[in-house]
């Protein structure tokens, strides 16, 4: 039986009004400006851009304001907004070697060309709440130092490649098609291009937990942070009408090269293998986790035994998207009155049968005892 139920419009309208009032909070406190969010909460903005899979700091700031700081809800708003826009095409792959570097560190080589550039980081802070920040929030001007104009900062992974100790990136034919999970649903087994796209927009918390599990022994990655870099890269786009590539400006990205032990196999000598992480904005924890998970998901390709959740691509890739996950988990709170009604009837019936069986068994016992 299908029962159509109407009603609740007024309650919903009023609930949204109440939510808007609560979102605004105490009106004697100034309302948040989007610039305040994008300038002062940039790491939240970055997370929303990565998980919303849309690089636009102002939109992410609006999402954060609208969602009252619920970053998954904000990512959801970004995903919904992108569906309203036409797709112009695909960029040329960005070149992270040509980055304007704001941070670059390596945990594997102390004295590497270009040096260890700490940049703006929480590392080495003592994690003590700073009450001075609560009082005024003004920051001192940063120090500056002379730099070599022509200095190149090579990728760490290129440094040892002369010896062949680190696996090189596999050469690819120029016109190899690139999978796109926003156009085609994900199927398994998924190639690395699809896996990396999925991980780049995957939930930071989920990937962090999976990456952590590999370090604790569920998948044995034995990783070193070969290199982490943060900065601005140019985005180029091929314009059909012009017949050449045009620059679209620069975007902020964070990149991580994880280097992992590898015992070798029948076809490959013992060497270091690699996992890769790349996200829009500033997301260091996310790229590190992404690189760990990327490496674990290469288990099959490298001939490793698959016995841990993080090596199972269907498990990882099907559950990494927090917009999908929240949709399915949170739909449980929507009315299921009719579903539940039928379950209720079923359980009453089953209980009745159970009770009858029990009573019959009891009577049998009584009869046996009487004999």
């Amino acid at each position, binding site marked *: 039986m299908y029962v159509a139920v109407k009603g609740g419009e007024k309650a919903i309208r009023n609930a949204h009004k109440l939510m808007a009032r609560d979102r605004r909070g105490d009106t004697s406190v100034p309302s948040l400006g989007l610039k305040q969010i994008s300038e002062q909460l940039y790491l939240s903005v970055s997370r929303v851009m990565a998980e919303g899979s*849309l*690089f636009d700091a102002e939109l992410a700031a609006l999402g954060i304001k609208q969602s009252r700081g619920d970053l998954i809800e904000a990512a959801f708003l970004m995903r919904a907004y992108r569906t309203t826009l036409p797709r112009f095409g695909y960029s040329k792959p960005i070149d992270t070697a040509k980055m304007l570097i*704001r941070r670059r560190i390596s945990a594997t080589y102390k004295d590497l060309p270009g040096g260890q*550039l700490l940049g703006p980081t929480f590392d080495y802070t003592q994690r003590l709440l700073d009450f001075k920040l609560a009082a005024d929030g003004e920051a001192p001007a940063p120090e500056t*130092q002379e730099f070599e104009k022509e200095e190149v900062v090579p*990728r760490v992974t290129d440094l040892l490649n002369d010896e062949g100790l680190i696996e090189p990136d596999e050469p690819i034919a120029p016109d190899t098609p690139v999978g796109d999970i926003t156009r085609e649903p994900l199927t398994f087994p998924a190639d690395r291009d699809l896996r990396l796209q999925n991980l780049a927009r995957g939930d930071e918390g989920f990937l962090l937990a999976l990456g952590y599990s590999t370090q604790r022994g569920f998948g044995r990655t034995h990783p070193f942070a070969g290199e982490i870099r943060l900065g601005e890269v140019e985005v180029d786009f091929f314009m059909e009408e012009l*017949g050449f590539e045009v*620059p679209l*400006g620069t975007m902020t990205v964070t990149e991580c090269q994880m280097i992992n032990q590898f015992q070798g196999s029948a076809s490959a000598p013992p060497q270091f293998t690699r996992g890769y992480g790349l996200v*829009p904005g500033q997301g260091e924890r996310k790229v590190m986790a992404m690189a760990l998970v990327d490496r674990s998901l290469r288990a099959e390709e490298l001939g490793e035994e698959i016995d841990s959740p993080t090596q199972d691509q269907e498990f990882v890739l099907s559950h990494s998207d927090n917009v999908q996950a929240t949709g399915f988990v949170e739909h449980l709170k929507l009315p299921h009155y009719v579903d539940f009604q039928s379950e209720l009837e079923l359980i009453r019936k089953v209980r009745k049968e159970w009770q009858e069986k029990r009573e019959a068994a009891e009577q049998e016992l009584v009869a046996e005892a009487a004999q």
Partner: protein
Amino acid sequence: MTASSLKEQSPEIAARQSAMGILAKASAQDLAETWKNLSLEPNYTVIRPAEIGLVMVRGRAGGTGAPFNMCEATVTRCVIALDDGTTGFGQALGRDKQKVLQAALVDALWQQSEHRDLIETKVLQPLASTQEQAENETRAEVAATKVDFFTMVRGE
């Protein structure tokens, strides 16, 4: 023919790309200001009105390997034509229609030999120098956070 071989063939295209790069990178405010200082009011027709859309930005596995789709980015683009038929293209990351319209006008004027010098000196050079200055400032600030290792020698 690939874009890079075109670039090698034509210094004209390379110069135009570099101009487009400066315009795309400029803040809307800086571009609006230099445009105003130019005091040119060319007649133009809009061929493609400023439109906001998406470009899927690609990275490469491992930095140099197979391309993959990292995330989309908002992009605005627009095409105009001057009275002599010269078309100008404006495009940049973000959602600023005024900025790409001005960029398209600058791109068109730059292609006219009678305006090129003016555009170079009054628009592109000032914008490029602002950008270079900001870049140098960033590099100087980052250089101050470069680690100087020193080794403590113990024993003899």
